[in-house]
């Protein structure tokens, strides 16, 4: 009985280790990062674009700072070799071409980082029009990257 239990535990541990290998871990972390970004993007969209009458400076600034923090966290580290295949929270949608297009990827990534930093800066000023314009630029850079290296659904 004890041996069976040990065996079961051992098998479970091995299986878990296999699922949570380094590739899967990278995919899972980056999927989490983009979910967190989506949440904060949504907050700004709601208060700056859709319902400016509900605008709250601190709320939007906090969201913009969170976006900038993720942008500056070194996401590139999560795109190691072989991470175009694998399941994080779900199957990754990274195009295999990612690894051949590193120069283009770096360019869009830099645009996103600069845009996010600028968004945090204008969010601190509380100028809704400036925030709205800069927010549009950031979401444009999101799309540029999706178009470049993300498999369409």
């Amino acid at each position, binding site marked *: 009985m004890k041996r069976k239990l040990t065996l079961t535990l051992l098998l479970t541990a091995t299986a878990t280790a296999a699922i949570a290998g380094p590739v899967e871990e990278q995919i899972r972390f980056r999927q989490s990062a983009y979910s967190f970004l989506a949440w904060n*993007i949504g907050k700004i969209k709601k208060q700056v*674009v859709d319902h400016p009458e509900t605008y709250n400076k601190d709320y939007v600034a906090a969201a913009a700072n969170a976006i900038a923090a993720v942008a500056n966290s070194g996401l590139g580290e999560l795109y190691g070799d072989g991470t175009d295949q694998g399941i994080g929270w779900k199957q990754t949608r990274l195009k295999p071409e990612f690894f051949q297009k590193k120069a283009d990827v770096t360019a869009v990534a830099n645009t996103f980082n600069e845009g996010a930093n600028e968004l945090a800066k204008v969010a601190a000023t509380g100028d809704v029009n400036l925030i709205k*314009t800069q927010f549009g630029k950031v*979401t*444009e850079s999101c*799309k*540029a990257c*999706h178009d470049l290296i993300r498999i369409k*659904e």
Partner: protein
Amino acid sequence: MKVTIPVWDLPHRLFHWLLAASVTAAYITAKIGGELIDWHGRLGIFILGLLVFRIVWGFIGSKQSRFVTFFPTFGRLSAYLQGRWQGIGHNPLGGLSVLALLLALSVQVGTGLFANDDIAFEGPLFQFVDKAFSDKLTGWHNSTVNVLLTLLGLHLAAIIFYRWVKKTNLIVPMLTGKKAIPIDLAAIAAPHPTPAAGAVRFILSLLISSSVAWGVSGGITQLYQATAAQHQAQQSAQVNAGF
């Protein structure tokens, strides 16, 4: 001997050119993204209204606009392919193309209503489906673009073919509404309704299509405002909790 008669009524022509312009604009705004994605959404609602208008007009518009007049039945298609078809307005092949375009555009608008771009845009009916289903519809929304581009390519190719090979200008009649046709064909052209009757039908179609567009774009959501208010109350409670 030719005679010039009215072929496309004014609402039909307005529909056509507004559709051409708004579909072009929707395509461009989607390609650019960023701030323009919200305009893409608004254009989608406008196109929805146009499509509903065209469908209603297909039943109560003047003769050449009606589906019964140009519906590409098997008999009409085979007569046309054998060169035996006679008529004005859409020929059976043209009718097929019109229906294909209306169908593809309806799929495009229908999926767009539930779509999301994983950035900062959600279609007006997104909240009524789960994210995974919205993602699937977004995928269809993306792939239907290729179907539409193909159909539009055929549409334009046909216009060029008629202009240079068959020496028939299709664009001018779609602008002026009038077409020169052989006099023996003029007999089968039903007269347009009187302006008064036409105006009543036009207003009716406009009412139906704008109601649908309004309902889909925000009217339905307003009915759920109570839920939204509740949600907001919950949210501020959480903010008050201090994290």
